[in-house]
């Protein structure tokens, strides 16, 4: 069903009604209310529960229709048999959007219930997410319908990556991990059964959202494959979509009668379709954000990589992966070579990878990095400093962050070690630099960025 939606009341509501709010701290109707109230939601919150007067110090209403003011969005967590009645009340009151957390619809065979939800939505024009979902998180306004307590499930800070997920459980867990990684999000949506608002509708919203630069997705299947591709193809011209698809093995295949049917299994077609639309498909959940975050870097003009390190071995290892992933090792320009030769100690070989030696301090790194940033023969930079050396002072953190903030070329950092290294790596990550503990992942991410920049970005 194709409707046009006004997503503002859903993603930027000024007021939220939690229908099915509960005094019982073990119920999700309590946790959601608590997350909104204590999480600092910037608008008004109205609990709705006919059996309570006050919940979490908020006056509770018997029905959404009793709320004297306008309600932008309703989060519905009532038992399934009450959902339709409550949704109709929202429609009658003029609530513009709803998130139906409750399960017990098409996923358990209750198709009729879901058809009713569609009907109510269509008649009223409401934007409805779900049913059977975790809903959404908008970090900038602290909109949060996810029913996991905050001490168990971390929330992402505000940022430029939108994450939409077909699975609530995986979506939430991955978001928790991303939050720990320091990934900032513009929006998280777990869209559940997609009875009304589908993943393609969400893509259309994100296409036009200036706060979103990268779209990450977890899907198991798509509703309307052709429409999804059409929309994705258009979006990927200017915004990358990074996607992981679950369900790769052939489920329920009959004996394929033709060669074509045998060769073009469901997953093979999905994968080809993604490629065709310029979507970047990843193999693992950790890759999803490891790759998404690199897309916030400036796009490289080409595929020539410079590696800067203070430990020969890791430079070599990284250069192996550069080649495997289809990138090229840059040849420094003459001016760069000269300037480096003149200022570097004699025992440093001016070549790529550039090994500044085990006694390098942050000043030496800065000098080299500044030269590499200016060299036209270099499109992207992989920094692989080993932070454990006695000469490498803490200034390296500032050097890397400052270089990255110039946004001249994409820079990724790889550093491997224990607590001291990890602490510094996290600070560098907070400073906006994509950091990794594996040269394999770092170079693969850079390769995906390069492929996108050179083959798909704003392609005709």
């Amino acid at each position, binding site marked *: 069903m194709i409707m046009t939606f006004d997503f503002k009341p859903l993603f930027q509501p000024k007021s939220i009604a939690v229908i099915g709010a509960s005094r019982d701290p073990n119920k999700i109707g309590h946790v959601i209310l608590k997350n909104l109230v204590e999480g600092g939601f910037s608008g008004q919150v109205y609990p709705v529960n006919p059996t309570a007067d006050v919940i979490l110090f908020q006056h509770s209403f018997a029905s959404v229709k009793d709320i004297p003011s306008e309600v932008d969005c309703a989060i519905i967590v009532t038992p399934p048999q009450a959902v339709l009645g409550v949704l109709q009340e929202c429609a009658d009151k003029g609530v513009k959007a709803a998130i139906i957390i409750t399960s017990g619809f098409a996923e358990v065979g209750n198709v009729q219930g879901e058809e009713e939800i569609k009907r109510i939505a269509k008649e009223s024009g409401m934007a409805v997410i779900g049913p059977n979902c975790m809903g959404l998180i908008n970090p900038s306004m602290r909109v949060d319908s996810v029913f996991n307590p905050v001490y168990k499930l971390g929330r992402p800070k505000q940022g430029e990556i939108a994450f939409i997920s077909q699975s609530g459980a995986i979506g939430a867990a991955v978001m928790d991990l991303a939050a720990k990684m320091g990934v900032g999000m513009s929006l998280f949506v777990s869209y559940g059964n997609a009875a009304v608002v589908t993943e393609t509708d969400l893509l259309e919203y994100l296409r036009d959202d200036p706060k979103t630069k990268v779209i990450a997705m977890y899907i198991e*299947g*798509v509703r309307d*494959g*052709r429409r999804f*591709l059409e929309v994705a193809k258009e979006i990927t011209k200017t915004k990358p979509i990074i996607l992981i698809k679950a369900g790769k093995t052939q489920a329920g295949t009959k004996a394929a*009668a*033709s*060669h*074509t*049917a*045998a*060769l*073009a299994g*469901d997953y*093979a*077609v*999905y*994968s*080809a*379709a993604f490629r*065709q639309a310029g979507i970047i498909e990843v193999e693992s959940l950790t890759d999803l954000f490891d790759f998404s975050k690199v897309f916030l870097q400036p796009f490289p003009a080409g595929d020539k990589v410079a590696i800067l390190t203070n430990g020969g071995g890791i430079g070599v290892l990284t250069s192996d992966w550069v080649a495997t992933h289809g990138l090229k090792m840059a040849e420094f320009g003459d001016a760069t070579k000269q300037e480096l030769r003149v200022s570097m100690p004699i025992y440093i070989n001016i070549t790529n990878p550039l090994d500044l030696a085990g006694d390098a301090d942050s000043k030496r790194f800065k000098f080299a990095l500044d030269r590499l940033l200016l060299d036209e023969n270099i499109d992207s930079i992989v920094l692989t400093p080993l932070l454990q050396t006695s000469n490498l002072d803490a200034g390296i953190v500032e050097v890397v962050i400052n270089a990255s903030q110039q946004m001249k070329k994409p820079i990724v950092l790889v550093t491997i070690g224990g607590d001291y290294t990890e602490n510094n790596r996290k600070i560098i990550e907070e400073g906006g630099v994509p950091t990794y503990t594996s040269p394999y992942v770092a170079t693969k991410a850079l390769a995906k960025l390069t492929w996108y920049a050179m083959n798909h970005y704003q392609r005709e």
Partner: protein
Amino acid sequence: MRTADDAMDAIELLAKYNIPFVESAVAKTDDDAQRFADSIGYPIAMKIATDEPIHKTDIGGVRLNVAPDAVRQTFNDILKSAVSAGVGSKGVMIQQMAKPGIEVIVGLKQDRAFGPIVLFGLGGIYAEALHDVSIRVCPIAEQDAKEMVSELKSSAIFSSRGIEYDTTALVDVLMKASAMAITEPIRELDLNPVIVYPKSSGGGCLVVDVRAVRK
């Protein structure tokens, strides 16, 4: 289980879309077989004409390089093989022997999620054994068709040992197949094998066998 009712006149379809098919005719009697063979010109191949999804060679339903005086006997032998294998047929196809080239497969299918898709791969046993195929959702642009050819892991074969094969002809067939997928009520279509020829000997490509199933 597919029946003859699902089968389409695949050869007619190919003609409609100007996809080159090897010269052929279906003989229902041994007299017809001889007549067709003489008129098509030798060397000829004879194959059981069936829409059932079987590998014709496996049931002894294919004879290559049939001599002019062996046509009638071969006709009867092929029909017997089909009967032994329990395969229904419409007769025996008399075909001109295609000159050797590189064998590829071009296919169409209605995908559950994405609708009509087109597939390309190296032919014969290689496609299924190595899974070296490229797939696109229809309709495709020329750029997509070109990528489909170059993205095969074994794409180097089209330009090896100093011989350049006519991949432009393949791109052309892929585009036509895509157009067919959008317009015709096809559920599945196999063009297998399609033989592509070196540019130096005139290039082009030729479909040697086809099977189509209606939606």
